[in-house]
């Protein structure tokens, strides 16, 4: 699996430089007291990782990867592990930066809020991965992009249409009841959904022909 991960990371080299530049921009904007863009960076890392699927597809890498030892399983596992490591690494870097900016700035952000923001961002990014990867393995990157756009657009439309008729106060009540355990619950949910997503992707790729 390590080899497959190295390949994916090598493919992201130039894009990682871009993230490096954005981290610097974020630090400068933070010091100047401008808006917080830290949540964008982990999302960008997932989008960059998704672009590796396009390269794989264009160069027929998937067929070749199956000819390598344990290729069917390892190539899927590597995509998930590499993405999760990227999300965690970039989230940790931006969080440390947020702490430093908050320490140096006059307009300090409470440390608790920074941590909640980090967990929220990681959860949101993993949610994207959870839905996107099985769709990509099943239909390819291009169709998956359109598909995810339609799903998000559809959900927003349905939500907007139904919101006047639905009472959402119970969600607020449940969340405030679980407040003390929220982060642990989010972590458990994240692990479960990513594992399920991985198993689905593995199954899809296992049946694929090239």
């Amino acid at each position: 699996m390590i080899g497959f991960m190295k390949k994916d990371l090598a493919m992201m080299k130039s894009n990682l430089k871009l993230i490096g530049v954005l981290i610097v921009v974020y630090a400068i904007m933070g010091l100047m007291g401008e808006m917080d863009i830290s949540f964008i960076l982990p999302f960008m890392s997932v989008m960059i990782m998704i672009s590796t699927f396009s390269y794989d597809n264009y160069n027929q890498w998937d067929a070749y990867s199956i000819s390598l030892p344990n290729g069917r399983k390892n190539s899927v596992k590597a995509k998930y592990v590499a993405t999760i490591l990227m999300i965690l690494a970039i989230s940790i870097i931006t969080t440390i930066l947020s702490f430093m900016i908050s320490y140096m700035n006059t307009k300090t952000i409470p440390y608790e809020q920074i941590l909640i923001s980090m967990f929220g961002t990681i959860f949101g990014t993993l949610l994207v991965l959870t839905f996107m990867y099985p769709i990509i393995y099943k239909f390819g990157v291009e169709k998956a992009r359109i598909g995810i756009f339609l799903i998000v657009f559809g959900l927003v439309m349905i939500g907007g249409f139904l919101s006047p008729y639905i009472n959402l106060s119970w969600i607020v009540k449940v969340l405030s009841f679980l407040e003390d355990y929220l982060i642990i619950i989010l972590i458990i949910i994240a692990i479960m959904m990513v594992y399920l997503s991985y198993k689905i992707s593995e199954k899809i790729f296992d049946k694929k022909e090239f």
Partner: protein
Amino acid sequence: MENILEVKNLCKKYDNFALKNITFHLPKGMIMGFIGENGAGKTTTIKAILDIVKSYSGEIHIFGLDNRKDERKIKEDIGVVLDDMFFPEILTPNDINHTMKGIYKNWDTKMFYDYLKEFSLLPNKQIKTFSKGMRKKLEIITALSHHPKLLILDEPTSGLDPVARAEVIQIFQSFIEKDDCSILLSSHITTDLEHIADYITFINHGEIVLSKTTNALLDQYGIVKCTEKEFKEIDKKDYIKYRKTKYEYEVLVENKKNLKEKYDIAVIDKITLDDLMVLMIKGEE
């Protein structure tokens, strides 16, 4: 003789094409040329051997092991070049080295860089800057650099100029001599195969037409070039296919010696693999 690869009754059905009972074997230390026209089933057979296509029936044994049950163990000892390009273009040979080091237990970094030098491929250049021939060489180098016992090569010399082709074929030959390994090599360039292949397996419309040693094939098979009158004297049982050209009949025969004795034919031309393919595909029975 021990067989490195055995394919028995391999069947695979698509809507408009099927592999039908593909059966052949490749003995240890031998090179097998796998020939046939485009769409005959060469790539599908190779992909079935490598489990890239699924839901096929039949048995495939490599190193005496089942290709699906013992997949991991088998693939450690196979080097592969596929027909289509397979390395993402933004990678460099250095990246390929790092990748393969994490995939193959026997990956030989020194061997890989020695080959890169021999073929004048720069290690830090992105593959997208390479010509088609250079990319093919990189794929071949990668297939060789983990000391495989079997090479499975789908059109490895396509896109190479004659000089590069000769270099690559030389590498295949020294690979066989050095490590007592075997090669399954599909190619359209049949002249290359005549020089290096010990066995020829010919596939047409998803069926194996013949699988023989190259020497037996080139010694026994022949082409009779004759007039219509002479052709009509030859019994149907004594030829495989014939083709009427502008000036003469070309008749493919399986046993040159017998035919010479039976019909008093003075000249029976030696056959080339190209002739064999054309007559088998285009000829009439």
